[in-house]
């Protein structure tokens, strides 16, 4: 009987985990939660790579991602990609990314994202890349970027994944 209950509990737990398997990779600092940092693999000669993640602010004061450092590149910067009239542009966001209380900000491809600039070597799919993110109020937090495929797209949010 015990074994049956244990089995059921284990099954329920593993099932409950399923939708968030890929994003069961979160970090916290202060009232900020950093969700699933990931990066795209890069071609052998590329000097730059994109880094992506979600920041949830469950606190009561605004905070701001200012940048950070990473073992994989000389710099970790915040950039914004825009597309107007068929032209792609990318600019550094020197004043960072605001995260208002109660809000979740997603750094994703083709929008505001992190840039690993002057890569020490190509990012390979399956690699884990250590980085430190620096926030204006919450301070610094160490995270690990999971390197996905070259053209990888952001995963569906857990809300969508369960449907």
């Amino acid at each position: 009987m015990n074994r049956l209950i244990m089995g059921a509990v284990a099954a329920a737990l593993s099932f409950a985990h399923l939708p968030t398997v890929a994003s069961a990779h979160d970090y916290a600092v202060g009232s900020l939660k950093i969700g699933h940092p990931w990066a795209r693999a890069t071609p052998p000669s590329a000097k730059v790579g994109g880094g992506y993640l979600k920041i949830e602010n469950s606190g009561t004061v605004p905070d701001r991602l200012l940048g950070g450092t990473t073992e994989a590149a000389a710099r970790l910067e915040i950039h914004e990609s825009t597309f107007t009239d068929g032209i792609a542009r990318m600019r550094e966001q020197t004043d960072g990314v605001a995260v208002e209380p109660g809000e979740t900000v997603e750094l994703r491809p083709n929008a505001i994202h992190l840039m690993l600039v002057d890569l020490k070597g190509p990012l390979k799919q399956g690699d884990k890349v250590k980085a430190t993110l620096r926030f204006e109020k919450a301070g610094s937090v160490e995270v690990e970027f999971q390197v996905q495929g070259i053209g990888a797209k952001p995963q569906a949010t857990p809300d969508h994944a369960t449907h």
Partner: protein
Amino acid sequence: MPILKWVRYGAWTAVAIVAFVSAAILLGWWRVEGPGRADMVGQNEPAVGGPFTLVNHAGKTMTDMEFRGRPMAVFFGFTNCPEVCPTTLVQMANLTKQIGPAADRLQVLLITVDPERDTPEQLALYLQSFDPRVVGLTGSREQVDAVLKAYKAYAKKIPTDNGYTMDHSASVYLMRADGSFRTMIDYHEEDTSALAKIRMVLE
């Protein structure tokens, strides 16, 4: 009789005005809708594309003539581009895979907008990560500027704290087998419509 004279003058003036307006309307119709309109006399055609001389990623000089007889998918990018360029190359590979062997005729070209940094060697390394059929093209600044101009594509060097980045046209130009322009795939275009466009140039 002065009054009659004035009436006569007035009448002729009215005739002249009517004649002038009629002529203007007729001329306008001729040029805008009639046989004299611009596209009937061969003006104002959007001539996108044209001859180019560039250097491929193996270091060999190539002109557009070497691809004649095959439809081309032409994309302007650069290897220090973290998002648009890899995404587009991966998307093109996915699309041609979905079409199957019929898409083997399509020649995908990546023309760098950053020839200063994108040497043939740099392009060759970069392209190792993508469909091996993609040909990377670079050249002198003048050669690259000439192809940009022919394709009416945009590229601009933007200085940054530690060097520079490039603003650039992010669409894929689909060219017919005879080298003439057919249509473009936008960066955010849905696969279904992009597939339909590729099939159009494969016909």
